[in-house]
């Protein structure tokens, strides 16, 4: 087996030492720090982006909160306004209603008065007619001339009966 031939042991060890030492020093001093820098840079970038994303998220949340607050405020205000309007309308309506009631009452009472007045007039007319008719009838049938006063007295006394 060539591996056990000691002829080139020293040569192998020597070149191994040379090349491995070179590799170790080169990687340690040049290559690995480069890769480490890149990885660190990337990590920093990621952290930066993450933190800025977090900040933006916080800002967005704040804005959302503001919007919600304003919506709530607007809602309350509208509710208040609606209530006020309803109250005002109700007052308006009730005042209108009461004035209408008053008008109606007045009109009713006026009408009643009118009716009573006309009733009285009619009654008077009826009495007069009755008196005239009576006077004429009595005058034609008999020769008795009745005075108006007498006739009226009679009519007055029978007022309740032919009403």
């Amino acid at each position, binding site marked *: 087996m060539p591996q056990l*031939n000691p002829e080139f042991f*020293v*040569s192998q060890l020597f*070149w191994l030492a040379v090349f491995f030492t070179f590799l170790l020093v080169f990687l340690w001093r040049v290559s*690995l720090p480069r890769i*480490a820098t890149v990885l660190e840079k990337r990590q920093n970038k990621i952290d930066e982006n993450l933190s800025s994303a977090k900040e933006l998220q916080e800002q967005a949340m704040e804005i959302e909160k503001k919007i919600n607050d304003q919506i709530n405020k607007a809602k309350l205000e509208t509710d208040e306004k609606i209530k006020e309007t309803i109250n005002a309308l109700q007052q308006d309506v009730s005042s209108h209603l009461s004035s209408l009631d008053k008008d109606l009452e007045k009109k009713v009472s006026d009408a009643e008065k009118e009716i009573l007045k006309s009733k009285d007039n009619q009654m008077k007319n009826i009495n007069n007619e009755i008196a005239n008719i009576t006077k004429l009838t009595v005058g034609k049938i008999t020769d008795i001339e009745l005075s108006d006063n007498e006739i009226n007295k009679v009519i007055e006394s029978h007022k309740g009966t032919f009403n």
Partner: protein
Amino acid sequence: MAAKDSPLKQFEIDPISNIELGGYNISFTNSSLAMLITVLVITLFLTLTVNTRSIIPSRMQLISELMYNFIAQLLSDTVGDNGKRYFPFVFSLFMFVLIGNMVGMVPYQFTFTSHIIVTFALAAVVFIGVTILGFINHGIKFFTFFYIPGVPFYMHPLLIPIEVISYLSRPISLSVRLFANMLAGHTLLKVFAGFVVSMPFFTGVFPLAFIVALTGLEILIAFLQAYVFAILTCLYINDAYHLH
């Protein structure tokens, strides 16, 4: 030593240029060339792909980052915060073994991780480093690592030697695992490749299909062994911090 067509011939080391230093033969060989290619691939890939340092990575940059995160995650899962300072070492170890295995999968390329001396050297660095680390962290108390609490006292004469032996065999198991896997896989590929040539007519297609499947398996093993090497290193580092 090996015959001309031996499946072990692929593991033979050929010097490319003969160098001698202080009486030692340190020739630049095909093994050294594979190591050089490995190191070049790793350094160039990890440097060029991350060159733009863009926050949104290109596909190639993403591969580098995935490897980085893979080992960083492995280390933080097993060792915790203490592990950060060993990251360059574990990462280099993982990449060196992984790309070394992968370079070995290229046809006609040499697999330096199939040489026990290489894997043993890597494992020995880990073992010695971890032992020194244990003594730095715990001083003389590090020896209580071999004392298992909550065991009947008469068991200790048996258990303490077992613990010591298992601790001392760590570099051997670590290195032999990688070496044997690579040796077996490449030998098997070579044996079946021999069948493709030697079998009559079209029947060579069958071992060829087997080689294709086996190559996929070998790539998986190449990754798996690098991962095992890295995770065991992490566990040993963890042991140096937390004795039990």
